């Protein structure tokens, strides 16, 4: 049975290196979907023995029915915050996958497909906290993919970050969300322009 959202199952990979808060970003998406939006969700975290610097990924599955196999087989969404993570997963994503990157950390070479880019780490640095790049990315993912509601995401961000940092993290989330929303708007405008020009 389809949900009003129009999908039954979505596979999301968020990737980067240890220390960027990749797993937390995945957990926020999974928790917001499961507890806020009432869909099924699983989160698999994979990382090496290092606590920082090694390759790290979060695999989130959202579905309207029970999820048996919890590993991502062909991502519908790839959000990459490291070149290594991008290179590892880009070959396996669905043809119509939404690909999101931190534009200062990932350089997609010779790629035909559309890519949604955000300077999440730079924006976080401008806000005075580099470690909030993951929350900016979470906001960006929310706006671009529209798989999880903004309200559920914001509630979950507030409940998942250290006490006392809720306000700054929500501001970071908002920044990523607005960046993504503006990007989509510009994209629609451009598409309309092309449609008019060719009409």
């Amino acid at each position, binding site marked *: 049975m389809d949900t009003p959202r129009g999908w039954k199952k979505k596979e999301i990979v968020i990737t980067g290196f240890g220390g960027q808060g990749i797993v937390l970003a995945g*957990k926020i998406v999974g928790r917001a979907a499961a507890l806020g939006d009432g869909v099924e969700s699983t989160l698999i*975290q994979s990382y090496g023995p290092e606590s920082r610097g090694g390759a790290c990924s979060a695999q989130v599955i959202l579905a309207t029915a029970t999820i048996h*196999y919890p590993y991502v087989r062909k991502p519908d969404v790839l959000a990459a915050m490291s070149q290594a993570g991008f290179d590892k997963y880009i070959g396996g994503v669905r043809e119509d996958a939404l690909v999101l990157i931190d534009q200062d950390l990932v350089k997609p070479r010779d790629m035909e497909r559309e890519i949604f880019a955000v300077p999440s780490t730079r924006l976080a640095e401008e806000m005075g906290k580099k470690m909030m790049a993951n929350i900016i990315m979470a906001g960006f993912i929310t706006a671009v993919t529209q798989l999880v509601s903004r309200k559920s995401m914001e509630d979950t961000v507030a409940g998942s970050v250290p006490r006392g940092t809720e306000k700054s993290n929500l501001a970071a989330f908002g920044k990523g969300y607005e960046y993504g929303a503006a990007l989509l708007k510009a994209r629609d405008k451009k598409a309309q322009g092309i449609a008019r020009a060719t009409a």
Partner: protein
Amino acid sequence: MEPAVLTGTHYMTGDEACAEGALAAGCLFFGGYPITPATEVAERMAERLPGVGGVFIQMEDEIAAMASIAGASCAGVKSMTSTSGPGFSLMMENLGLAIVTETPCVVVNVQRAGPSTGLPTQGAQGDMYQARWGSHGHYEIIALAPASAQDIFYQTIRAFNLSEKYRTPVLVMTDEVIGHMSERVVIPRAEEITVFNRPRAKGRKDRFKPFEPGPLGVPPMAIAGEGYNIHVTGLTHDERGYPVMSVDCQREMMARLIGKIQNNLDDIIEVEGYLLDDAEIVLISYGVSARTSRAAADEAREMGCKVGFLRLATVWPFPEKHIRELAQRVKGFITVEINFGQIHREVERAVQGKAPCFLAGHCGGTVISPDAVLDIIRREF
């Protein structure tokens, strides 16, 4: 005091849900040593136990961890530890002590790929035979294998209940994937959770025999310091708990230790069938591999193959009867597990040649994909 039962809907990892299951079952002591991927069980217990009036101790190693939970249990509280392969190996000797002294306790093994230190952050199911025979001597053991965060909450409660009921250590054999995966977990109200407490000593304190069997072959337990005469030893002992170095005493003690498990299999064994009614091919699995199997069964049905699935929620004692019954009417079995055929061997033994048995095995480090199972179905059936 904080509530022991965190009633509500949560999004948590299997490790966290395991700790919450333990607390809901009434666990008040955790002695352990951190090890990936089991550390989060210990972390959660360290955070939560003081708030519910319990005690958490980080021991010097896993040998001491196992000793500490046996000791805490003798002192009257429900106790547990959690570890992974390397620590599980160190616990084996004192696990045997807890078995022969009939000391209830729960040991959680969040399995990672071995041998030795192996792949610390990556899962496997290679300790299933170690769970069965890792300590020396012949004995019976109970081992459960949860397949989700919700299930590990429930199976951990069941582990405590069985451990108290049969006065024996119970193993929760989970794995890195279940331990580290986050999912929705619904924790019911405390009054909806069935909790079993060990049979307690009654009657005259000077006449009490600590190993005189009660109902189900299980002796009522005196708490150290209550005033009952007790003697606890790893040596072969009689009903008074005193060492007796004779074949007769050994025979009697062994018959009871084995009998209290073997005579209550229907109570201890839990299996879950899926699409079994008309199944021609049966997948057998447990833990995270159960999820692969269920996905594979669904996909095989879409291909038009009559595939069913039997999940072993209890792995030890082995659910032989269920498999033997299926063997009378199906075309074959595929055991799905992240090792090279530990439970597969048990399946073969139970099937006794009545149907072909195949293995969808794996070296460890990740899970088995449903495609690997489907390949075997296409190739062999």
